[in-house]
């Protein structure tokens, strides 16, 4: 298999310098724009500069990384150092939902929304311990590849492709939707047009260079998104409490919120765990909290666009370390999000609620003019804003923070560029996961195993563009709820893929029949619960909301795989030797006869 990598050694050795210079250049660019703003350049121009310049940089990296080699296209030549793979995974992972909506979710949901924060981080422990090093040792191109080899045949492979497609496609529609919203807001163009502008942004990164191009743009995108996320909240923390570390200072904001809640007569406290609307302990809330946490964590460890990032490290050891760096870079954003929520809530309770409507802070007035995101309605006509008269959309919290902190418009542009980086990078990773599964697993492995390298790469690119266009077209119909679609993707992946992947490595007795039955039952039950409760008014089981629908499919997948495996003949000696060879970092893989591999 080992195709010699064409990524030049000096490039990999100088990554620190290259990206260090890039980060410095980006900060310089922000400062220049800030100066231009002071000199009177209009906001719209600054917004354009941010959107086009950042997309231009990604496109430049994408073109530089073009390749005509399979291992470069599918797994970035397996030369990505763990630290940088961690950054790329961070960008791959954090989407518009994390960047823009999560802090707002915390604002509205308080403790209850911390299930998202936990669920979207803890899964990396599972990735690092149970899967990543072994999948890296396996060393092929895609996640269905593993299923096809371990479970001897195309039935398992195609089951894997179907689950991958359903989960990743749901996810990519949500991302494209997010890109459309950001682009239309900052370029001031209609949503339907904005989606296709965003689509071009996605395709320039991935089409020519596949995984290699996506990897190096994702590192660039991570740098922009983390600078953009931290800047306004650090500034506000310093302004309010004289402490530039928001993660330390927002405890004080939480205490102020608690006092204000008493004053305003709010029954459900921000920090109160498992409370219903009256502030009483509720078992339904309790159960939904751990169910959501579990679903999101298992989903993390099952989503192919994340797992395939660990195919790109030079060796098994680096794959493990890389998981550590991934969670570290993700952690930087996730443990800051609750600070955003606390600062925004403190601001709203102090300076907005109970004030004269004619004298509200400037940021409230600005945002209430943008359609439907912030509504102020003086229900009792007393000229004073009551809590119930103030309706805020969760997407505003991050976007309005620069204004709450009294920062210039250039920082708002920075935040938009960050949100765009987050959405583009995730969309690219997902798109590649889907297109690779279709071109490699379906076309090459099942339809035309004789295809030449040229032809395979051509098919891969055609499918990439095709999937992207279909995704954008579906997103253009505005299917409801980004967060909900994202959570569905996690449920579907968790119920369909986690059991066959983990058991395939950790339990040698798992048979092909067992794994296939497990995938079908797990995925089927999950999809049934999802569709039934969402579209057919099916009553909830045990009060578990359908964003956690993997809760029922997942244990069934394990149970069925286990039972059917024991009822069927144990895997051959060769297959057991193969599993043994996956478990040990050093040494050749003991391929089972008749299995084709790269």
């Amino acid at each position: 298999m080992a195709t010699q990598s064409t990524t030049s050694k000096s490039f990999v050795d100088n990554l620190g310098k290259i990206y260090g210079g890039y980060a410095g250049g980006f900060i310089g660019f922000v400062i220049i724009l800030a100066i231009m703003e002071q000199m009177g350049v209009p906001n719209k121009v600054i917004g354009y500069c941010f959107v086009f310049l950042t997309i231009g940089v990604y496109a430049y990296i994408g073109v530089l990384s073009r390749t005509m080699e399979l291992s470069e296209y599918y797994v970035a030549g397996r030369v990505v150092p763990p630290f940088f793979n961690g950054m790329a995974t961070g960008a791959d992972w954090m989407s518009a939902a994390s960047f823009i909506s999560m802090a707002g979710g915390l604002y509205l949901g308080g403790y209850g929304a911390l299930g998202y924060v936990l669920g979207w981080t803890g899964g990396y422990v599972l990735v690092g311990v149970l899967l990543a090093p072994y999948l890296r040792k396996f060393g092929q191109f895609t996640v269905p590849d593993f299923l096809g080899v371990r479970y001897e045949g195309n039935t398992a492979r195609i089951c894997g492709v179907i689950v991958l497609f359903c989960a990743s496609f749901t996810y990519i529609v949500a991302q494209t939707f997010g890109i459309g919203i950001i682009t239309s807001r900052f370029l001031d163009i209609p949503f339907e047009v904005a989606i296709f502008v965003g689509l071009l942004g996605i395709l320039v990164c991935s089409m020519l260079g596949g995984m290699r191009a996506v990897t190096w743009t994702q590192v660039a995108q991570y740098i922009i998104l983390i600078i953009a996320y931290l800047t306004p909240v650090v500034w506000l923390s310093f302004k309010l409490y004289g402490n530039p570390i928001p993660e330390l200072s927002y405890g004080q904001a939480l205490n102020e919120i608690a006092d204000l809640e008493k004053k305003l007569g709010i029954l459900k406290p921000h920090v109160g765990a498992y409370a219903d609307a009256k502030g009483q302990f509720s078992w339904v809330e309790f159960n939904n909290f751990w169910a959501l946490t579990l679903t999101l964590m298992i989903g993390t460890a099952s989503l192919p666009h994340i797992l395939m990032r660990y195919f790109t490290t030079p060796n098994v050891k680096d794959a493990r370390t890389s998981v550590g760096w991934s969670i570290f870079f993700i952690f930087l954003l996730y443990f800051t999000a609750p600070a955003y929520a606390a600062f925004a809530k403190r601001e709203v309770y102090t300076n907005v609620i109970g004030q004269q409507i004619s004298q509200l802070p400037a940021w409230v007035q600005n945002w209430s003019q943008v359609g439907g995101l912030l509504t102020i309605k003086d229900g009792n006509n007393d000229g004073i804003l009551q809590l119930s008269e103030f309706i805020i959309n969760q997407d505003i919290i991050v976007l309005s923070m620069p204004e709450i902190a009294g920062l210039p418009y250039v920082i708002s542009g920075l935040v938009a560029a960050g949100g765009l980086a987050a959405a583009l990078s995730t969309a690219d990773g997902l798109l590649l996961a889907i297109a690779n599964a279709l071109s490699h697993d379906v076309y090459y492995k099942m339809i035309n195993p004789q295809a030449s390298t040229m032809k395979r790469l051509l098919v891969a690119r055609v499918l990439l563009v095709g999937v992207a266009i279909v995704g954008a077209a579906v997103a253009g119909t505005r299917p409801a709820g980004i967060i909900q679609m994202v959570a569905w993707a996690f449920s579907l992946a968790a119920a369909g893929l986690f059991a066959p992947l983990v058991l395939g490595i950790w339990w040698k007795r798992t048979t092909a029949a067992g794994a296939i039955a497990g995938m079908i039952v797990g995925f089927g039950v999950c999809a049934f619960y999802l569709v039934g409760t969402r579209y057919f008014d099916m009553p909830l089981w045990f009060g578990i909301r359908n964003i956690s629908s993997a809760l029922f499919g997942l244990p069934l997948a394990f149970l069925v795989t286990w039972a059917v495996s024991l009822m069927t003949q144990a895997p051959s000696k060769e297959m057991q030797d193969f599993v043994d060879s996956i478990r040990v970092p050093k040494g050749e893989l003991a391929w089972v006869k008749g299995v084709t591999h790269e």
Partner: protein
Amino acid sequence: MAQLTPAQRDAYWRKTSRLMWIIMAWWVFFSFVVHFFAVQLNSISIAGFPLGFYMAAQGSLISYVVLCFWNASAQNKIDEEFGVAEDK
């Protein structure tokens, strides 16, 4: 040398599995067990944060970072002990 005898291989996998279960136990503890007591923990205040809230917003996240790096380094030690670490 890359070939382990079956006995060595079993010993290697026993150690690896043991590490896996230890990390999984901590993962269960920080992901679920701690948060089951969030209501009670919230009555304790640490650096201005109610402890139950703090654990879900920061404490458990820090533990995940530590667990991932710990797993990587502990597994490397096992690999070296059995001579199956990769050559660079």
